[in-house]
């Protein structure tokens, strides 16, 4: 699979037709999707129509857009016109098809992108592994016995396995960054309020973000730039000017101030998580450490807010057909429905106080480095894992480093270690690092990620399976 940028350039230059690229991608999905179970729906007719429109634009001398003919796919919580939005749930499969594309899908279509389908996820985005009870587990292309991460597991796997160069996912507590890390690809969780979420199935409105996955920084930037834009239909979006990043990737990172997150982010994980951070820190010359005050409490706050808001959204179904939920999410939603209001309001107050404390750090630091996941991909079906001598439930613990960051909406670019074998990860499996910036400073994150890519420190390792 060639990159999105190269695909678009070749199609714009008339070297390939979008229709040819689309047919190749569709054939690849038909041949290989069963291996990983990334796609839950392939939108063949739509893809052919969109590709034909790109080819027609080029034939007519019109600009086909920066993503001309680039195949992409979306987590199955994004609305695709004419397709029922599953959000990973059996409950949703009999609902009417979406009448209109989600805002970000409309943006990608306007940029010339060709949508190939919808991708597997944890039910209602409430999970970190994509072991979906209804639609089957999504398998990690680096080791098919291991999880993809989640909840945007299909989005990460479709890119890591080379089925498409670009996908979209959502991230409430880590659902872009965790699968990015476990599948060894790049993922962006922009600032809360940057990209419109309208037309996506919500999980926790207070914490939901949408963002792209790709195998290199240029593709991630291309997607991010195309998706920016004001949308009155997302009540949480901040209407800021479009802030493109693709033209910044060659800028050096001299003068930027880096620090490694200590405390909570320097414990609670396996050695490979810290080796990954140390590798990136060394490449950037980061010697300083900063402490995000009360990060563990912030994670607890995000946990309570997620339980309560998530459950509230599904109350009618919890009352009438709790049996129809994925067993992995059902009991969490049922418990979440009953949380005392005081716990949730206190969590929202703590969240604001924690944000104010963390924002002060950015007076002295531009980018904070933290692990993305506490370990490499666990096995499918694995329930427990040993960390620091204690046995912990493996799934919720995957978000231990991501939750305290999304809790306050900071932008994060998850970058994969190019050579996981060299840093000694178990089985040479991939692992990533979070690059964290102040709100609205995605530009800095893209510059740093591109510099790490140029230095050969960060890149998507090739799956062996």
């Amino acid at each position: 699979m060639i990159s999105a940028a190269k695909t678009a350039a070749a199609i714009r230059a008339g070297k390939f037709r979008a229709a040819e690229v689309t047919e190749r991608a569709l054939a690849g999905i038909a041949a290989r999707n069963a291996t990983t179970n990334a796609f839950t729906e392939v939108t063949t007719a739509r893809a052919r129509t969109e590709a034909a429109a790109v080819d027609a634009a080029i034939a007519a001398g019109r600009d086909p857009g920066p993503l001309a003919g680039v195949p992409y796919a979306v987590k199955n919580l994004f609305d695709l016109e004419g397709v029922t939005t599953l959000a990973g749930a059996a409950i949703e499969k009999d609902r009417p098809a979406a009448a209109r594309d989600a805002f970000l899908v409309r943006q990608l279509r306007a940029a010339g992108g060709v949508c190939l389908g919808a991708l597997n996820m944890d039910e209602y985005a409430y999970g970190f592994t994509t072991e979906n009870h209804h639609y089957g587990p999504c398998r990690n292309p680096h080791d098919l016995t291991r999880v993809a991460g989640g909840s945007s597991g299909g989005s990460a796997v479709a890119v890591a396995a080379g089925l498409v160069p670009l996908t979209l996912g959502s991230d409430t507590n880590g659902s872009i960054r965790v699968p990015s890390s476990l599948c060894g690809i790049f993922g962006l969780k922009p600032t809360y309020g940057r990209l419109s979420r309208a037309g996506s199935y919500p999980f926790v409105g207070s914490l939901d973000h949408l963002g792209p996955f790709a195998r290199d920084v240029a593709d991630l930037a291309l997607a991010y730039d195309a998706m920016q834009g004001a949308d009155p239909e997302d009540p949480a979006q901040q209407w800021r000017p479009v802030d493109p990043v693709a033209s910044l990737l060659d800028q050096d990172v001299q003068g930027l101030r880096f620090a490694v997150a200590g405390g909570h982010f320097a414990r609670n994980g396996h050695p490979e998580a810290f080796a990954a951070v140390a590798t990136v820190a060394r490449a950037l010359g980061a010697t300083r450490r900063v402490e995000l005050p009360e990060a563990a409490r912030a994670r607890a706050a995000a946990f309570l807010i997620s339980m309560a808001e998530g459950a509230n959204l599904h109350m009618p179904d919890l009352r009438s057909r709790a049996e129809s939920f994925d067993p992995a999410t059902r009991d969490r939603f049922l418990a979440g429905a009953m949380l005392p209001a005081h716990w949730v309001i206190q969590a929202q107050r703590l969240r604001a106080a924690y944000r104010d404390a963390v924002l002060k750090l950015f007076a002295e630091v531009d980018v904070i480095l933290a692990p993305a996941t506490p370990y490499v991909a666990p096995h499918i079906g694995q329930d427990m894992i040993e960390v620091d001598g204690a046995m912990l439930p493996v799934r919720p613990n995957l978000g231990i480093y991501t939750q305290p960051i999304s809790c306050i909406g900071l932008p994060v670019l998850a970058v994969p270690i190019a050579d996981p074998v060299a840093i000694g990860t178990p089985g040479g499996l991939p692992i990533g690092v979070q690059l964290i910036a102040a709100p609205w400073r995605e530009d800095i994150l893209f510059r740093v990620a591109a510099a790490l890519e140029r230095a050969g420190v960060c890149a998507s390792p090739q799956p062996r399976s």
Partner: protein
Amino acid sequence: MSTEFDAEAYAKATAPALGLPLDPRHMPGIVANLQLAARMAALVEALPLSPADEAAPVFVAGREPPK
């Protein structure tokens, strides 16, 4: 807090107020999740906040539409 919290009794008392039928087969999972939530709430509760610390979401009465 969590040591004194009887999650099952709490769930049985709360569910009727919400019109939420609870299947006894789901109770072990509900109890485990409520106990976990109670531990999380204890962590949150242990950080003193002042009355000036308002909740994070802020209602906006109206927005200028994007140009």
